[in-house]
């Protein structure tokens, strides 16, 4: 049984590596059903289109940004899932892209996964990531709430947080 379930995740990774050998940087399987694929950020739209059409991951559950100030990079994580293919419905694939801290720009995937519309707006305002090609990139949650730099970055410390 465990042999069969690891082979599903490994099949996805092998297909990705054989299709985009030079864009995929590293892959990982965490427990069962969680696959992580790190890729080159310039080819996000090709990889997303292939994931949707050939493998069947048809929607995004969310887009998370993570800030690593010691390595001077921002990571964008796309969590993709599948509704239409029952055999991979319980797998979540995390696509990771690294962005340099001083030029965080990546192409938008809204034309491929329309579910990314509001997730990209939130990542833009919380981390300062510029999604090129998004039809309506403006502040969503912090519109009248916070006027400073993107609040989720680790350099923005709120000294009173966690005190008392």
């Amino acid at each position: 049984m465990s042999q069969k379930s690891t082979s599903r995740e490994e099949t996805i990774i092998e297909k990705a590596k054989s299709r985009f050998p030079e864009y995929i940087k590293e892959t990982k399987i965490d427990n069962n059903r969680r696959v992580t694929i790190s890729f080159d950020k310039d080819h996000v739209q090709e990889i997303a289109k292939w994931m949707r059409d050939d493998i069947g991951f048809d929607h995004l559950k969310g887009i998370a940004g993570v800030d690593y100030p010691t390595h001077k990079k921002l990571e964008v994580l796309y969590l993709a899932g599948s509704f239409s293919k029952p055999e991979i419905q319980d797998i979540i694939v995390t696509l990771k892209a690294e962005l340099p801290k001083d030029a965080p720009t990546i192409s938008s995937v809204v034309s491929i996964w329309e579910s990314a519309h509001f997730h990209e707006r939130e990542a833009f305002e919380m981390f300062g990531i510029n999604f090129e090609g998004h039809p309506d990139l403006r502040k969503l949650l912090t519109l009248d709430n916070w006027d400073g730099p993107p609040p989720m970055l680790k350099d923005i410390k709120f000294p009173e947080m966690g005190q008392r």
Partner: protein
Amino acid sequence: MSQETLQDFIGAWIGKMSEIVQTVTGSGPIKYLINWSRMYALWPVHITTACCSAEFGAMMGPRLDPERFGMQAVAGGLRQCDLLIVEGTVTKKMAKRLKIVYEQMAKPRYVIAMGDCACSGGLFHDSYSIVNDVHKLFPVDVYVPGCPPRPEALLSAIVKLREKIRREEVFA
């Protein structure tokens, strides 16, 4: 009589008449009547601030039935309401709108700060996007602590507010 003396005389006469009206209506049975009508028709404004609104909804439910005190959630206009209940955390975005709503209410108007977050910041006191001191936006009449306060606590706050209205001066 010259112009100035006539004006002074009329001004003094009007001042004396309004003093008499204030003394008559500001005490005794007329004051009781005006305050009674104000405290038995407290209509809350339809604005929900944050998660304490779930307990506000529970208070308006059939268990506690504030309608026997005249408190109905009427879907009318803002100008006819006289009670603003700040339920829960006030973010900076919502604080602007609360101030506009408070200024649009007709006097006399009362404010209840419900929940720990409205009283002093509560659980989220150190967040970047919230306003800790609601009393700097507008004067608050009753504070109700709790996270969220029980519906019975909110009802007892309304009873306290009614006591306050019963005793207050008509022309404040």
